[in-house]
């Protein structure tokens, strides 16, 4: 997708990204944040991605692409925090395949920004796993105006 300029850059986010840093948590789909050439964060801007997926033989099921048995939801970078999370993503290796994954600090910031019980739990898991650089996380929260009290280690 990147080579064909369908997306400028991408990073895995959500619960699947948490898997790279913390204990497994239940999810049924894989979120991918994408920086799009159009720069527009609208759903209509995802059209070229779905078109690309069809040409690759991947099934499209409502908003999900079915890629090798996994429902993948592409989300355009809808605000400055998501765009930064994609730009700062870490390169991981999964069974010999390089994958870009949102880093733990941005995962926590995104979970706190979006809210909801399951996302707060995800943030807590990352903090408990001792993989979050807290000063860096606090700097991200401050830069993006996210007012949140971080839970302690207990």
């Amino acid at each position: 997708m990147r080579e064909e300029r369908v997306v400028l850059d991408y990073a895995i986010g959500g619960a699947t990204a948490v898997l790279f840093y913390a204990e497994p948590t239940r999810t049924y789909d894989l979120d991918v944040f994408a920086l799009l050439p159009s720069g527009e964060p609208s759903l209509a801007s995802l059209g070229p991605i779905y078109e690309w997926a069809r040409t690759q033989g991947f099934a499209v099921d409502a908003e999900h692409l079915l890629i090798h048995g996994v429902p993948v939801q592409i989300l355009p970078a809808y605000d400055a925090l998501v765009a930064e999370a994609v730009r700062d993503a870490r390169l991981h290796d999964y069974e010999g395949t390089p994958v870009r994954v949102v880093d733990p600090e941005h995962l926590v910031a995104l979970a706190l920004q979006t809210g909801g019980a399951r996302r707060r739990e995800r943030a807590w898991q990352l903090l408990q796993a001792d993989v979050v650089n807290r000063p860096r996380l606090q700097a991200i929260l401050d830069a993006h105006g996210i007012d949140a009290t971080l839970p302690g280690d207990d």
Partner: protein
Amino acid sequence: MTEPLSEAMRALLARKREWHRAQARLPLREKVRILLELQRQDLPLLAARRPLEPWERPWEITP
């Protein structure tokens, strides 16, 4: 007012915390295997509570 935790309780919580950290350090392949197991276990419970979305099904992959 919250009572201070006993030494035994503090030790129990510390062991629990370490267990979670050990889970976090598992190889990615093992975490994916656990995730697939969680999906299989959770799906009937979810289905009993509400209609499932079409994409809510265990991933057809081998970790």
